[in-house]
């Protein structure tokens, strides 16, 4: 106790002697970092936040926000939300199954390492490549389609849906499921086999175990993961832009279109207002996620 306390006392006595000069020199060490993030992270964020209140001539306006009620922005908001919700729920469901299959195996096994690493690549590497993977497989020249077609199953009979939102949703699952695996594995790792044994020794069966023990414990972290996946889909741009180049069905494409319109109708202020809309939604979702994560931490 006394030994542990000594250094703390010594530094507390020592600091005032060295005074303000040392204090200021210490701060110089973190200047480059804060200067950098100030310019390339905080400044652009401020540019978005402030720029949304100005029109092209540089005078103050609220029009950019009023324009958010334009029917195509409203429609894009609904579309993006639905797309994100569907891919978040789908990704979470299938990802949780896959994660459970991994967690019931050898924790240091090759299979687990391989799946986790592969999930890392698919969750974090470019969406463009993933879109191409689907064009090459189930696209109208892909071997899956050619095979299905030659066996009398033409799944594009009613139009090539790969280049529509349902196709986008399918490709999103290709990075949402791996992300779910990465997010949900730690939660599943926290489930102790003893809980199962305790349930059994008290006469409970598998249903009781999932309904009253594992389910309620995993539920907050599952919902948290759904929110994270939602935010991930919501901010995605590359995949959808690689698949759909007619119109701009999702918000991120609306922003890109408003920043640099090819027909010369760029509305930078409006782009920033949509960006704010997006950031508000993503922030709310992220805060909910953080709160749930904290609640989960109590048990796992």
């Amino acid at each position, binding site marked *: 106790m006394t030994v542990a306390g000594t250094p703390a006392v010594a530094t507390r006595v020592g600091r005032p002697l060295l005074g303000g000069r040392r204090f200021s020199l210490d701060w110089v060490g973190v200047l480059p970092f804060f200067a950098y993030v100030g310019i390339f992270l905080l400044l652009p*964020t401020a*540019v978005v936040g402030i720029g949304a209140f100005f029109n092209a001539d540089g005078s103050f306006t609220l029009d950019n926000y009023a324009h958010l009620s334009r029917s195509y922005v409203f429609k894009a908001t609904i579309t993006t939300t639905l797309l994100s919700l569907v891919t978040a729920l789908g990704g979470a469901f299938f990802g949780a*199954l896959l994660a459970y299959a991994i967690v019931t195996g050898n924790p240091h096994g090759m299979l687990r390492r391989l799946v986790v690493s592969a999930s890392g690549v698919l969750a974090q590497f470019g969406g463009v490549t993933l879109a191409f993977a689907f064009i090459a497989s189930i696209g109208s020249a892909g071997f899956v389609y050619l095979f299905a077609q030659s066996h009398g199953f033409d799944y594009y009979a009613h139009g090539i849906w790969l280049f529509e939102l349902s196709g986008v949703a399918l490709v999103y699952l*290709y990075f949402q499921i791996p992300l779910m695996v990465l997010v949900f594995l730690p939660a599943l790792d926290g489930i102790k086999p003893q809980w199962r044994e305790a349930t059994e020794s008290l006469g409970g069966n598998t249903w009781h175990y999932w309904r009253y023990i594992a389910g309620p414990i995993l539920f907050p972290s599952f919902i948290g993961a759904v929110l*994270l996946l939602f935010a991930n889909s919501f901010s995605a741009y590359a995949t959808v832009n690689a698949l759909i180049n007619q119109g701009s069905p999702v918000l991120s494409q609306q922003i890109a279109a408003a*920043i640099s319109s090819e027909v010369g109708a760029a509305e930078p202020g409006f782009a920033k207002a949509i960006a704010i809309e997006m950031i508000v939604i993503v922030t709310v979702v992220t805060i909910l996620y953080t709160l749930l994560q904290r609640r989960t931490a109590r048990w796992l």
Partner: protein
Amino acid sequence: MAVAMRSVQRTRRIKLQVFRIVVFALAAVFFLIPLAAMVEFSTRGINGERTLEYWTSIVQYPDMIKAIIASVQLALITSVAMLVLLVPTMVWVRLKLPQLSRIVEFVCLLPLTIPAIVLVTGLFPMYIWLGTNVSDSILTLAFAYVVLVLPYCYRAIDAGLGAIDVKTLSEAARSLGASWLTVMWRVIVPNISNAILNATLLSVALVLGEYTVANVLLYSNLQVELVHLGRANAGVSIAVAVASLMFAFVLLVGIAFVGGRRRRTQSEAVTNLGKGPVQGSAG
């Protein structure tokens, strides 16, 4: 009673095995077929034979070659800049300004809550200014990329620094007369080499896969050129795409295995794939 219990457990184990096999089989189908299809598509000949024609004709697309070179350069510049910016700052904060650690963490993780498309909206006027006054080279994208890789690299390096006693090590080195530069280069860096490798590989993979920022700022990096070429010659584009995906796969699997071989306990802490709060950036 005991016999009944054991048989219940056995049927459960069999059920579990069946479940696992089914799930892994379905996952393999869903995840491997598109990848295999890319290889198949990019080696297709006109009369149904296998050929590497698409692969060899990559060199005939100078725009694609230029884009690949630019992306590789960007990956290198971003990684080096990230390390130079992040490692000394994080060590310094741990040693001298622990009260700042929460702020640094917050700032570093901030890009996770700001979608790339939003960040680029704010960067757009800045890059116009940069383009007219400083340089309009594609390599200026590295400024933005350092920000994009910040959260991932912060976590990797933070885990590495957490696994060693930075304070004792640097105090020992200082008391033996080492300068701060020596402390950094010869004491800290070798001790967190796994974490540094980790952060570097992650940033290389992220930069090679980046599309949003480059596309909106009208720069032709690897992914932008992939989409562009994909509309004219899908075969060549898919060949490049599969190559870049395999490259990223090798890099990121490398993180798990290079780290795992050296020191087991540390590698568990350092591998940031699947540890702590994760976030995807594929979309």
